[in-house]
């Protein structure tokens, strides 16, 4: 490993250490996700007023938009972890990249389905080949491609390497999804929430949305850590530390 990387990173990235680290943090991340998610749902479904144009149908936004953000965010994490795994051959980066793909696919799937359920009453159609919708569908196919490629090799690490290449190439779709509403004339509405400058949304609607965004981030940590732990166990199943865990869990 390159010598400019601090020692603690090196130590943490060893499978038994990361297994313990992830095991300690995961319940906290899950509790925070559930608490913040419950608060956000209460704010979004009960406290926030109905929209003056869309009535109560707009309430789908409180899951649709956070899931769409997660779809893009997780793709970014997956691509960066893929790059690290290809350049430095760190096993943990490989596992993070490959286990991020199903979570990202789940969020992208939710985005497409909830968008469809929102589109029907508002646009009059479940689906249209609009730039935003099409690029989001491509995002789902990229995730499925990464998952499929990973599992299509007999040797797991070879599969991970091939899938990492696809993940890195596919990153080009992320800005396309994000800017599609500005670049093309689409049916999908433009961004309502902005990082820079004021958002075009009342604070009663904005805070539940942002709270749900934080909740989905914590959910991602909880889900990813659970998946990484499972993967580390099966990758290292010949090692002593895994055998000890297997023996301990049979006593319970």
């Amino acid at each position, binding site marked *: 490993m390159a010598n400019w990387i601090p020692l603690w990173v090196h130590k943490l990235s060893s499978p038994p250490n990361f297994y313990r680290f992830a095991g300690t943090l995961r319940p906290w991340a899950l509790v925070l996700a559930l608490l913040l998610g419950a608060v956000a749902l209460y704010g979004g479904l009960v406290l926030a007023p109905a929209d003056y144009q869309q009535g109560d*149908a707009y309430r789908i936004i409180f899951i*649709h938009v956070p899931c769409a953000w997660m779809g893009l965010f997780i793709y970014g994490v997956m691509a960066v972890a893929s790059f690290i795994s290809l350049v430095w051959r760190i096993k943990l980066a490989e596992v993070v990249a490959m286990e991020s793909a199903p979570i990202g696919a789940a969020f992208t*799937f939710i985005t497409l389905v909830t968008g469809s*359920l929102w589109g029907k*009453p508002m646009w009059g159609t479940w689906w249209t080949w609009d730039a935003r919708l099409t690029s989001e569908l491509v995002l789902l196919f990229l995730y499925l491609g990464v998952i499929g490629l990973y599992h299509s090799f007999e040797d797991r690490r070879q599969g991970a390497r091939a899938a990492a290449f696809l993940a890195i190439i596919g990153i080009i779709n992320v800005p396309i999804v994000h800017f599609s509403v500005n670049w093309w004339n689409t049916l999908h509405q433009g961004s309502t929430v902005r990082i820079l400058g004021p958002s075009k949304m009342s604070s009663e609607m904005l805070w539940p949305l942002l709270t749900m965004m934080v909740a989905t981030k914590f959910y991602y940590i909880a*889900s990813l850590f659970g*998946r990484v732990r499972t993967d580390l166990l099966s990758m290292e199943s010949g090692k002593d530390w895994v*055998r000890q865990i297997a*023996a301990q869990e049979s006593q319970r």
Partner: protein
Amino acid sequence: MSAFSWDSFIAMGGYAAYVWPAYAVFFFVLIADYLSPVLRRRRDLRELRARMARQSARAQRAPSSP
């Protein structure tokens, strides 16, 4: 804000058929995502224990054989 009523909450201003399925998909998919590694982990460890049991059985047999 007017007083909370369950009926109007469930009705979602007439959009219940769109809003509630959206939330159902959200929860269903995330619960499935969360449980899948739990089940995989349980299966992996069970297989590993079976392998360990076979190995220790073989190790016990080997020294006593003539």
